[in-house]
């Protein structure tokens, strides 16, 4: 599948400038500067504890940054609840542990936000939900409960749920790390398809094949900093920083 890169000079939809965050005394994000253009597909990798999850969780304010400025879709993230909720309506997120609502059926998981946040009538919300379920090829499971599905199916439902609010940006926080090996591909296929449709994506993942195939830019983080970023081909073929080289040699060795 060929993926066209976004046109140059498109305005930034996510903009970190000098963003810092601490967990108590631990300096988890250090002077992060990062700008993501509309339609750009970004993969963030790095060793565990490097701050990559924290970084993308700041984008929809699941984590608060303490200093610096972070703008998403032109809205600056601060304590303003209205601003946060307006950003969250435009940003979908997929989690490592799926985080589906176990007490609701698959269909209800998908219609909840469109009905309560988007104020859609039920019939319309269900129509949209079924459309998204077909998109992730799981429409026949609509009336089951999440825990009756396999991990791969649950993650695809989670993707469909995030898409139901027609977000402009999708965040993926290690979406395949909790999956059995034989289920990773069914989730990656859905993500590749999504990438081909022009939505802005920021993915924290160690699936380097996926990164090479879809990423416009790969970012390597270590110790709370962005160490290196480059186009996928350049990043994998000619890593510049020794930390990057070391990391890649470890995860690509086998």
């Amino acid at each position, binding site marked *: 599948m060929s993926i066209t890169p976004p046109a140059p000079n498109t305005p930034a939809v996510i903009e970190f400038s000098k963003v810092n965050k601490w967990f108590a005394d631990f300096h988890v994000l250090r002077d992060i500067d990062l700008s993501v253009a509309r339609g750009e597909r970004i993969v963030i990798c790095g060793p565990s504890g490097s701050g990559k999850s924290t970084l993308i969780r700041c984008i*929809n*304010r*699941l984590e608060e940054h303490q200093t610096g400025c972070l703008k998403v879709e032109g809205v600056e993230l601060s304590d303003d609840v209205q601003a946060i*909720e*307006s950003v*969250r*309506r435009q*940003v*979908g*997120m997929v*989690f490592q*542990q799926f*985080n*589906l*609502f*176990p*007490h*609701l*059926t698959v269909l209800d998981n998908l219609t*909840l*936000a469109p009905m*309560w*946040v988007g104020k859609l009538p039920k019939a319309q919300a269900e129509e949209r939900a079924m459309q998204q379920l077909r998109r992730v090829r799981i429409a026949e499971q609509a009336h089951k*409960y*999440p*825990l*009756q599905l396999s991990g791969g199916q649950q993650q695809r439902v*989670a993707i469909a*749920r*995030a898409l139901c*609010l027609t977000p402009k940006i999708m965040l993926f926080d290690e979406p395949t790390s909790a999956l059995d090996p034989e289920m990773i591909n069914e989730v990656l296929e859905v993500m590749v398809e999504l990438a081909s449709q022009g939505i802005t994506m920021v993915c924290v993942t160690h699936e380097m094949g996926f990164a090479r195939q879809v990423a416009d830019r790969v970012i390597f983080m270590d110790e709370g900093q962005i160490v290196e970023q480059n186009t996928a081909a350049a990043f994998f073929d000619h890593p510049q920083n020794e930390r990057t080289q070391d990391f890649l040699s470890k995860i690509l060795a086998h």
Partner: protein
Amino acid sequence: MHPAVFIPIAARQPPSPALGAWPWIRRHFFDGLANSLLTLLVLALLVVALPPLLNWALVHAVVQADNAACRAAEGVGACWGVVAEKGRLILFGRYPYEEQWRPLIASALLVLLLIVSCLRRVWRPALAWAWVGVFTVFYGLMKGDLAGLTAVDTERWGGLPLTLLLSSVSLVVAFPLAILLALGRQSQLPAIRTLCVIFIEFVRGVPLISVLFMVSFILPLLMPQGAKIDVLVRVLIGMTLFTAAYLAEVIRGGLQALPKGQMEAAHSLGLGYWQIQRKIVLPQALRLVVPAIVNTFIGAFKDTSLVTIVSLYDLTGALQLALGDADWRKFFIEGQLFVAAIYFIACLAMSRYSQWLEGHLNTGTRRQ
């Protein structure tokens, strides 16, 4: 030696256990030495205890309200006549005798709504209005002074209707209050959190009797001069606050058991605070603590008997009134058994309902 082709082994039935009465008895009662000895011990106890008990409770018992017959059977047979004679006094307390159809209907309405409220399909906002309606009708019927009904002061309300009113008000009102307290205790806002913590810890930290006394004496001080609050209302407020404090801690347990990811997913979808609580958090948190909630309800139901200390005659209080009659005072055990049976039936119903509800609510939340 691995064959290149996969050869499936057909699925077989599990071995079936031996059928019939004797294998069943052996499996359940004589499974090993210790179990067999225990079975024999229990059988021996039954042989010793059961015949005299049945003789007393049934064979030699006096059922009619015949005081002389009761006295004759004393020590040999039970005098259920005390229930026949004093039953209405125990059930309705000092409520005027010829007006007792009013508490009967009022109680029946209350019980009916309690039963209906147990069904999941009626759990919607309209249910709250049904409760407001039934409480209003209950009050109107009992209190009278309208539509040609004679006025009956709340001080004369008593027995089962009073017990039902006290427990249903303190459960129905305490439940939403407890949810707010539990959420408040988890709130990000320091003022609300502190207020909830102080309330919960204070009310939970003193005996119900103290709360009842305090409400009885402190509440009038807070009212404008001359305004008088009915003793029943004061007791209702006291019991409700007390139950709410306990229940809030139970519910907090459920809130804390919820995985953090549920909140994060709800946040990431842009849901607001109250939407998250209503649609995601409470439905999951409450079902986790159904047994503990019902446990608190059962405790609160039995605690209503403490209102006798502020001179309200609930079921147990009315029994004491009934036993004030010197002719029947001797047969207090039978009277106590009668009242105990009423409490037991109500508590058993709550307990069984809790078990049913647990299974019923678990749809989908457990891996099948």
